[in-house]
């Protein structure tokens, strides 16, 4: 397995370097072939490892690569650790990445900078693989920052657009706020455990659960503060409430990027981290409660915003944010296997939805506003079916007594059942938040489908379409298509849609027994709560059916509002304007942060500079002394020539005289 692991991780890096440095000299086709080939190789090697863990024939392994840092008692090395948890991530990352590479052949066809794009994608994949194979916290942080860099570069890929540059910085800086927590968490962990090795920390965690540690002058329970600090890092990367503001803006990047980074892989790194460190979190009840509350709040909050947005990618972005909330509260209540299962199924259907949206955007000449879609199901039938399957998967269609359902049914329902079964106040709140969010999920997902694929075409109102057909809406008259003909996407884009559709349909059904019920599959790579899983299966039927019921309600709601009586949304907005505005404006988070962080930072910077440096330090420091000297120097004018050489010379002469005086 050793060589395989090395190839899996380093093939994308090598491909990225070749494509990135070769760039234009290499040409589009070669650069794209190398990177895509590298990723398919990695994906092909990952699946046998994953299957090996499913069948129990593989065991955890660590491949040492190179010494990294050795400083006093602190030492950490480059090493690749593969266990069941990592194996899950390997297949998710490499499969989705390989498909996204392939998809980009079609989607980025006309872009002048294709080698750069593919190099970034592969670089991202490498960093993500380093993150999930980390054997110590510092290498995890390396991957963590590496994916952050790739995300920054890809969000800003179309760097000529000012909005892309702004979104890229926002993503990086907001993530850095989380990283502050992560770094302090690593420092604290080292202080307590005298190591950064993950297995050693996990083994010693339970023994530390009763101790306390000093933090900012307070005495706090050791494990709770450490886990809380690390979780702040997870909140940043996984866009949880408070540190989520960068994710919707990240949609400035090309759509394949949104599918890979901002849906399937990078944003799930926080969930992965909590699961990886689950034995540590299990020694930290307060931190876990915070994880549960933040997760539950995010899953509800993001879902509300999803119901009001018009940009098709933003709807899916908020949906991602909300689904990540589910994963976090699942982890918070101790159902780590279930959280990882939702991460796994979500990767398939969310990547599918994003790539499907990309296909729609491609067909609609870069128009992303759903108000200008409509009636697309006949024009782009394959995309339509793929999106439909993705929607059924995310809304979680499935019937308990039939034992059949789409991917989301298996994972999301298990999360809700676990939250109910856990039986604490926090978990019950999380359960209800989850059910409400499921209702909203169904509503916004079907709203997206109805606005896009049903109803009459509203294409001519789009400026992008107007530019293409050279008509104004008035000129087009009755024909609201404006004579525009959307085309189905090329085969390179359709293959990934078909593959991911299969995943969205089957991933739940096939893998639920292993991920949820099989402690031996995880083989100690996460904290596996046997009793909670038993309790999860024993919840009352109304709990098991609650998700299905709200899913149907959401569907009906969306059907009425967007198909049967399309004037309802406008009426709602006019009578509940304040509520709509609050949600549509994303709960005013951006405005708030702008007012309390961004603007004051610039204002303070200017004050420090003008009033501090120039107005105080310089005025009373060098300039002040200079003025005093000048006034008193009339008499001494003869020796003060003003030339620096003279000053320097006098200083040296003085020094020599002084030395001579003291020593002789």
């Amino acid at each position: 397995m050793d060589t395989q692991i090395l190839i899996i991780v380093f093939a994308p890096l090598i491909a990225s370097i070749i494509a990135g440095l070769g760039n234009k000299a290499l040409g589009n086709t070669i650069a794209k072939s190398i990177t895509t080939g590298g990723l398919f190789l990695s994906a092909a090697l990952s699946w046998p490892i994953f299957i090996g863990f499913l069948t129990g024939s593989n065991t955890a392994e660590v491949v040492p690569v190179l010494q990294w840092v050795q400083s006093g008692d602190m030492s950490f090395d480059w090493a690749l650790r593969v266990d069941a948890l990592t194996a899950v991530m390997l297949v998710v990352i490499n499969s989705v990445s390989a498909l996204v590479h392939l998809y980009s052949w079609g989607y980025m066809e006309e872009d002048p900078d294709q080698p750069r794009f593919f190099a970034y994608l592969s670089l991202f994949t490498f960093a993500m693989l380093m993150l999930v194979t980390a054997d110590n916290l510092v290498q995890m942080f390396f991957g963590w920052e590496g994916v952050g860099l790739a995300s920054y570069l890809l969000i800003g890929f179309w760097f000529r657009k000012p909005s892309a540059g702004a979104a890229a910085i926002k993503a990086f800086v907001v993530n850095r706020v989380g990283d502050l927590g992560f770094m302090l968490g690593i420092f604290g962990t080292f202080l307590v455990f005298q190591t950064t090795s993950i297995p050693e920390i996990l083994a010693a965690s339970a023994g530390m659960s009763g101790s306390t540690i000093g933090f900012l002058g307070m005495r706090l329970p050791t494990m709770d503060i450490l886990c809380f600090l690390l979780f702040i890092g997870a909140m940043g990367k996984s866009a949880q409430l408070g540190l989520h503001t960068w994710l919707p803006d990240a949609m400035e990047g090309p759509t394949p990027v949104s599918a890979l980074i901002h849906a399937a892989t990078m944003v799930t790194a926080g969930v992965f981290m909590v699961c990886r460190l689950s034995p540590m979190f299990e020694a930290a009840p307060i931190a876990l409660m915070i994880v549960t509350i933040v997760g539950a709040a995010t899953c509800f909050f993001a879902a509300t915003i999803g119901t009001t947005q018009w940009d098709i990618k933003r709807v899916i972005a908020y949906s991602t944010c909300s689904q990540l909330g589910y994963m976090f509260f699942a982890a918070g209540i101790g159902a780590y296997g279930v959280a990882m299962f939702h991460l796994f199924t979500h990767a398939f259907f969310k990547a599918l939805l994003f790539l499907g949206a990309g296909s729609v955007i491609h067909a609609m000449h870069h128009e992303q506003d759903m108000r200008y879609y409509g009636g697309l199901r006949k024009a782009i039938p394959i995309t339509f079916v793929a999106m439909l399957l993705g929607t059924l998967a995310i809304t979680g269609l499935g019937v308990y007594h039939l034992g059949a359902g789409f991917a989301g049914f298996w994972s999301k329902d298990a999360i809700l059942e676990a939250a109910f079964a856990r039986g604490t106040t926090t978990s019950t709140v999380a359960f209800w938040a989850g059910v409400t969010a499921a209702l909203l999920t169904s509503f916004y997902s079907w709203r997206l489908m109805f606005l896009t694929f049903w109803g009459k075409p509203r294409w001519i109102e789009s400026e992008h379409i107007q530019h293409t057909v050279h008509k104004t809406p008035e000129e087009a008259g009755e024909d609201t298509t404006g004579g525009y003909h959307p085309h189905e996407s090329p085969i390179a884009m359709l293959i990934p849609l078909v593959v991911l559709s299969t995943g969205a349909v089957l991933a739940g059904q096939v893998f639920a027994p292993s991920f949820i019920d099989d402690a031996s599959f995880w083989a100690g790579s996460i904290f596996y709560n046997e009793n909670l899983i038993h309790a999860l299966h024993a919840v009352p039927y109304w709990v098991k059916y609650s998700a299905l019921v709200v899913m149907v309600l959401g569907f009906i709601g969306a059907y009425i509002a967007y198909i049967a009586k399309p004037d309802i949304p406008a009426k709602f907005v006019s009578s509940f304007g304040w509520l709509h505005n609050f949600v549509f404006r994303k709960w005013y988070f951006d405005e708030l942060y702008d007012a309390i962080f961004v603007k004051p930072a610039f204002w303070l910077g200017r004050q420090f500079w003008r009033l501090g440096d120039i107005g105080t330090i310089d005025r009373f420091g060098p300039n002040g002394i200079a003025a005093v000297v000048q006034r008193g120097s009339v008499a001494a004018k003869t020796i003060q020539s003003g030339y620096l050489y003279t000053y320097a010379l006098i200083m040296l002469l003085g020094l020599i005289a002084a030395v001579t005086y003291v020593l002789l």
Partner: protein
Amino acid sequence: MDFPILTIMMLVPLAGALACLFAGSASRVIALGATLVTFVLGIMLWANYEIGGAQWQFQEKYELVAGFSYALGIDGIALMLIMLSVFLMPICILASWDSIKKRTGEYMAAFLFMEVLMIGTFAAQDLFLFYIFFEAGLIPMYLIIGVWGGDNRIYASYKFFLYTLIGSVLMLIAMFWMVSEAGTSDIPTLMQYNFPGGAQTWLWLAFFASFAVKVPMWPFHTWLPDAHVQAPTAGSVILAGVLLKLGGYGFIRFSLPMFPDASADFAWFVFILSMIAVIYTSLVALVQADMKKLIAYSSVAHMAIVTVGLFAFNVQGLEGAMIVMLSHGLVSGALFLCVGVIYDRLHTREIERYGGLSINMPYYALFFLFFTMASIGLPGTSGFVGEFLSLAGIYQTSSLVALVSTTGIILGAAYMLYLYRRVAFGDQKNADAAAMKDITAREWIMMTPIAAVVLWMGVYPESFLAPMRADIAALDALLSAAAPASDAALTGGEPLSEAANAIEFEGHEGEAH
């Protein structure tokens, strides 16, 4: 040591400098040759440095008058700083290749003199010899700023001079006192000498006055932005790359080992100034419109991470501080080179005059991005290793200082990426900036070695840590007795009996899902 390599490393640039004074335009070639030879000698020095051998190696000693001697010798810390100096020097000569038009010979001579004095500063083992090199090293810098600088060069060089002078005078007085007390000016002996507690306080303050200005620490930093802005590109590279390291070197060579008790007493004083520096200068950097000023302010913030690491009183802090110094020397030097590349083309440092350079200068944009990322401490680059160790070190002494200092990673990302966005992203709004050509072969040769070393130090810092390990361990042992109490200490307790999410399950399991 039979072969006086340290003296020869100083004689080569000295001879080069004298030749340059009379060589006119050939001086560029002479200077490049001299610095390259010195660099090769430096590599020999490193290769022959015996890790785990004697603490002081390559020692040379010639008694001069009355106990004052010409004594050279290096430990691992000095070795690394000498390597940094001799590595950057040829790059500086290349950076000045076309841009220095007037008095080229004198300019090259000034640089070579500076190299002599920098090597001397790091290699000196006699207190007064150190002082002479330390102070005299600034004279070529005054000249470089004052003669070849920008429009406001006189003010800048004068401010530079005034600041450093006041600190130096106090340090010199302290040195006299030390020599008369200890009866020797030999630095290794003084490092073992126990100065009485009360005297340590005053000595520490006197040395601090000099080093704090060099570092520079807030609020003694205002000379730096002016000096950088006015200095020619290569001057900025050496200023940021080596001269700022003199302060940190002073702390680690003199203040900490010679006055450990006073250092512990003043640790919080240093922390407070450093914490202010991180936040204050980062915010100031955010609002700068001049590229060089922005990077100069960022230097102050980075050097504050050095000072918190040094006064963390543990191995991680000290080693981290050293790596931050080396890394900052390379990275901020490279950033100034990046500014120089476009300054040479457009003759302005104003950020707003650029934009969209990724389009017409893709390789330039790549280098600039790389050094930007190294500056904000992306793991895999040298910046991360240093910052991480330094902050991990300070956390063990104070979580509060660690928290405040670590905000530097947020603010650093903000001002550097904001700079990068305005220079390299966006549309090409200025026709003249859009017409600039990508980097030339000469510029490739300047940037590539620095990028390679930054990566090397980020991925395998062992090469740089190993020579310093024994010296830092010795210093740590000396300091540990004086270390201030930690506010992050662990107190044991009875572990919880079960996992947080442990639950009872008694009911019957439902049907299989």
